[in-house]
């Protein structure tokens, strides 16, 4: 792997940037691997990276049916924060946030993590009480989160309309200063480059169509559009398509897949300094380094794999954005798109073993798993390598739906991104 540095940059600059090679190989699949990761999104690639780096498993492959990062990783609004209510959630998202803070150095790849602050708006008494509860719970867990008055919120984000005459006036906000955004593609590419350099085969255009199990029930390998690949360990990290793949191994999942939409405006000069989320009016907004306003909308109400979503969902969000930020009313939206998010009944992920020997799953990140990418890959790699869950991942078993030990972030906060 060629390391990026100021020196290499200068060298290439004198060479009209002709010398940059491909950042990862495009290998043919081998007959077999020690482990196979299904799904080349951020989570799958991070899993492969940490398997190779921390557990010495280098004879492994990531199988991606399209192109890496083309799923939700490349479609999300990149909000990163860790101020979740429950101890289990705070632990895993904070684990991820700590990794984000050093990720560009770790990967020698600029993932453009920008801790510009994530501000969640409270619009009613319930929001105020619930967010303050979060602030206190977070502090006990060593996670930064602070309460702002409407005036303080406006000072932090000048475009915000804090007029009391709004339909849903801003009654305060919870701010996590270490929260922010990152460049979605760069995360996938950085992990892919790092994993590839350690020998991991990243195989694109390779769809897993079946999971073969032996007489004992344990997995033997995966059927793919590029032939059968033998392996004793499979990690399924396929977001919205998890149910479809797990069904091939005879495992039914507590998941539903919904389209979730986002949209961007035409690019403008820097006007928006932070990330603002509002669960009550259903809107999320930040400004990318290119200058586009990046806006997240809600999910459709029905199960779908169509990667689009209803126009009324997006317009509903724009209504809210225009009320909170009246200066954006005349901006044009350039593009909108959808991703398929896999949602669990308690809105917390599932990371761990399955009833099938050798089959592991990392899914259920729903509308908010981008922020967890490094942490999720890190603990899932441990789980696959050791055959036992990493302590941080341990509460997130599939079995919690049988035992009743739910991690009910949905009820706690109506959490979205």
């Amino acid at each position, binding site marked *: 792997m060629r390391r990026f540095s100021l020196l290499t940059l200068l060298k290439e600059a004198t060479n009209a940037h002709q010398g940059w090679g491909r950042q990862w190989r495009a290998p043919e699949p081998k007959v077999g691997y020690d482990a196979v990761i299904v799904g080349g999104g951020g989570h799958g690639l991070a899993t492969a990276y940490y398997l190779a780096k921390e557990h010495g498993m280098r004879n492994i492959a990531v199988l991606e049916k399209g192109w890496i990062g083309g799923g939700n990783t490349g479609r999300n609004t990149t909000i990163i924060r860790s101020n979740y209510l429950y101890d289990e959630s705070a632990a895993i998202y904070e684990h991820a946030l700590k990794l984000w803070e050093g990720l560009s150095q770790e990967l020698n790849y600029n993932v453009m993590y920008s801790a510009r602050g994530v501000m969640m708006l409270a619009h009613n008494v319930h929001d105020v009480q619930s967010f303050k509860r979060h602030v206190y719970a977070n502090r006990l867990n060593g996670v930064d989160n602070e309460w702002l008055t409407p005036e303080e919120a406006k000072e932090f984000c000048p475009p915000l309309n804090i007029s*009391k*005459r*709004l*339909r849903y006036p801003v009654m305060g906000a919870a701010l996590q200063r270490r929260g922010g955004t990152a460049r979605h593609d760069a995360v996938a590419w950085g992990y892919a480059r790092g994993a590839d350099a350690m020998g991991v085969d990243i195989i694109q255009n390779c769809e897993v169509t079946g999971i073969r199990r032996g007489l004992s029930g344990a997995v033997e390998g995966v059927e793919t559009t590029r032939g059968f690949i033998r392996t004793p360990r499979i990690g399924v990290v396929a977001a919205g398509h998890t149910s479809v793949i797990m069904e091939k191994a005879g495992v039914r999942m507590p998941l539903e897949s919904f389209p979730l939409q986002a949209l961007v405006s035409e690019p403008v000069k820097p006007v928006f300094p932070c990330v603002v989320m509002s669960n009550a009016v259903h809107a999320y907004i930040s400004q990318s380094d290119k200058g586009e306003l990046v806006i997240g909308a809600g999910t459709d109400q029905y199960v779908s794999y169509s990667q689009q979503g209803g126009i009324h969902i997006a317009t509903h969000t724009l209504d809210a954005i225009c009320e909170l930020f009246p200066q954006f009313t005349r901006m044009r939206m350039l593009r909108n798109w959808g991703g398929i998010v896999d949602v669990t009944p308690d809105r917390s992920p599932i990371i761990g073993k399955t009833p099938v020997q050798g089959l592991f799953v990392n899914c259920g990140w729903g509308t908010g798993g981008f922020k967890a990418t490094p942490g999720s890959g890190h603990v899932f790699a441990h789980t696959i390598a050791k055959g036992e869950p990493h302590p941080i991942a341990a509460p997130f078993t599939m079995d919690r739906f049988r035992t009743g030990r739910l991690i009910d972030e949905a009820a706690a906060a109506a959490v979205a991104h």
Partner: protein
Amino acid sequence: MLKTSHAAHRDLSLPIEQPVTRPDTKAQVVIRPLPAQARFSLRLNEADLEGAQTAAGVTLDIPINTRSGSAERSSIRLGPNEWLLTGPYDDAEVIASQIDAALSGRFYTLVDVSHRNVGITVSGRRAAEVLNSGCPLDLAEAAFPTGMATRTLMGKAEIVLMRLDDTPTYQVECWRSFSTYVRDYLIEAAREFEPSIA
């Protein structure tokens, strides 16, 4: 009549604060509130319609999403087992007792919702366009001719929409607490057509 103590209070005033009363018969859109009416919500199993096709002077046995009767008394079938019945405000007790008489022996519920609803008419050449700014239904002649009536949406508020005549005149029925929102919405949408508003 809209500004009763029950009416929702919307702090953010729309550009038109006061009702613009411009009695203009040639206006492309006319928006006006209706006077008080007697209204009932009737629930009756479909099977029990047999032998009770009419009650209180209106026909119950009509297709779903249609209206029958006159301005005086009407029956609107909102679903297989649900009707909205309307009549003059002072006739409420009479209507109730007539329904009781017609349906006696059957299992049904009759709830007086006279005070729950507010009626607004939207009429004129551009009426459908104004309604479509917040109502997703196809209001074209073929899809929503005179006599159609259904529950639907106006912006974020649930309404019952009826087409009363070929002018066309539409009646919007909404809950009282939504009525200022619905009326403001209609007025806002009608602005480009220089409406007559009462």
